[in-house]
């Protein structure tokens, strides 16, 4: 084995654990927390859009318009580098959580809204005809069915989110990608390090798509034809 090959092998072996550790300690929690909070925001925004209340639905529409119409990276910069100038200084992790939550909330609200609207009117009417209120019908009849519709696209957006968390490197968060950058800076092997980071992202998203398949299977039972 020549020296160069040996050197690269050493770098790969030595960097794998730090990269994986950054992934497990920061990338995955960032994605999980942002996604969980984002789903709550998404549901609220979707319900606001569907509420028939002009003010609420206007606010929700405005929010979705802003978030979908501007780059996530720019949003993260505004939160992390911009807000301190008006006295709001947040750490890298909270900034990233806020940025990704708002993003998941906006895209997710469109998914949830579409899923709720896909439930046949007859289901609402059947719920009302047994005397349910709007919120009972929503909770007991419509949301459980809409969930089945929303799970595949929401799982897709979670996989996108895992990949998008690499943007947090740009606001100094030491997640997977930033650690790859740091090691690159000392080893001068960008091809090796960034490929290795890519492989770890690939592992994460592959595992997630298995989970997605399993979830879809579970949720596709007993769906109205």
């Amino acid at each position, binding site marked *: 084995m020549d020296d160069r090959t040996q050197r690269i092998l050493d770098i790969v072996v030595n960097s794998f654990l730090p990269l994986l550790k950054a992934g497990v300690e920061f990338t995955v929690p960032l994605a999980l927390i942002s996604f969980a909070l984002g789903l709550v925001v998404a549901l609220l925004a979707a319900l606001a859009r569907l509420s028939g209340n002009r003010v609420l639905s206007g606010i929700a529409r405005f929010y979705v318009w802003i978030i979908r119409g501007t780059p996530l990276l720019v949003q993260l910069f505004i939160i992390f580098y911009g807000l301190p100038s008006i006295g709001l200084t947040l750490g890298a992790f909270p900034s990233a959580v806020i940025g990704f939550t708002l993003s998941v909330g906006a895209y997710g609200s469109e998914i949830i809204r579409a899923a709720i609207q896909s439930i046949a009117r*007859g289901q609402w009417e059947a719920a009302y005809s047994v*005397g*349910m209120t709007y919120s009972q019908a929503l909770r007991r009849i419509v949301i459980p069915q809409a969930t089945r519709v929303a799970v595949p696209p929401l799982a897709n957006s979670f996989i996108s989110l895992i990949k998008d968390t690499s943007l947090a490197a740009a606001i100094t968060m030491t997640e997977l990608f930033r650690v790859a950058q740091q090691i690159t800076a000392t080893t001068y092997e960008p091809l090796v390090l960034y490929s290795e980071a890519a492989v770890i992202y690939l592992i994460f998203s592959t595992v997630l798509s298995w989970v997605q398949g399993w979830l879809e299977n579970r949720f596709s039972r007993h769906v109205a034809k």
Partner: protein
Amino acid sequence: MIQIRNLHKSFDDLHILKGIDLEVGSGETVVIIGPSGSGKTTLLRCLNLLETPTSGSLELGALHLTFTPGKPLRRDETLALRRETGMVFQSYNLFPHMTALQNLMEGQVTVLGRSKAEAREKALQLLKKVGLADRADMYPHQLSGGQQQRVGIARAMAMDPKVLLFDEPTSALDPELVGEVLRVMKELAQEGMTMVVVTHEMKFARDVADKVVFIDGGVVVEQGPPEQVFEATQQERTKQFLNKLSV
């Protein structure tokens, strides 16, 4: 039991119900017939406020509702009326994510606040009544249309409504499945359930109805006992409608 007075319903500027007066006595079965588009479904939906009438009044038991254009009903009035009525839909509208048993328990637990055990017992008893005791744990998509509709009837009954409303309960069914549903309905009628039934099943109307109501163009054209409406028809429009059916 039910007293409808001068009921109007418009969708925007489409005037669909043009002053319906109708009385349904306790324990009576009233069958509503009429051509397509005459407003039968709209009338039935007005009775449990899936549509809000534009004007007129509706009494059901102790509830007296008056409708004024542009004035929405109070939520508690709407809910109170719906508690007294059960609806059976043409397309069943069972909850697909629940078993037959759960379909019957849902409203009892969520709306009436019954305990699960109590709701379950009532549900099983009703499933038995409609001949589906052995299908309790099946999901709607695992049942035939006739079985689904019988679950639909049992689901409505589970809420102990004062009146059951049926909108063409058999018209989505294959002909060989119509009988089993009509049998259940006939049994309910004979047990003294108050029912308002929109149907094209004239034999059912003849055998079971206490009163037949012919609606055309959003008004009651003719009403009376089935013998009278079918054999001694008064109105020309009713005659034409009945003639077309028997051809």
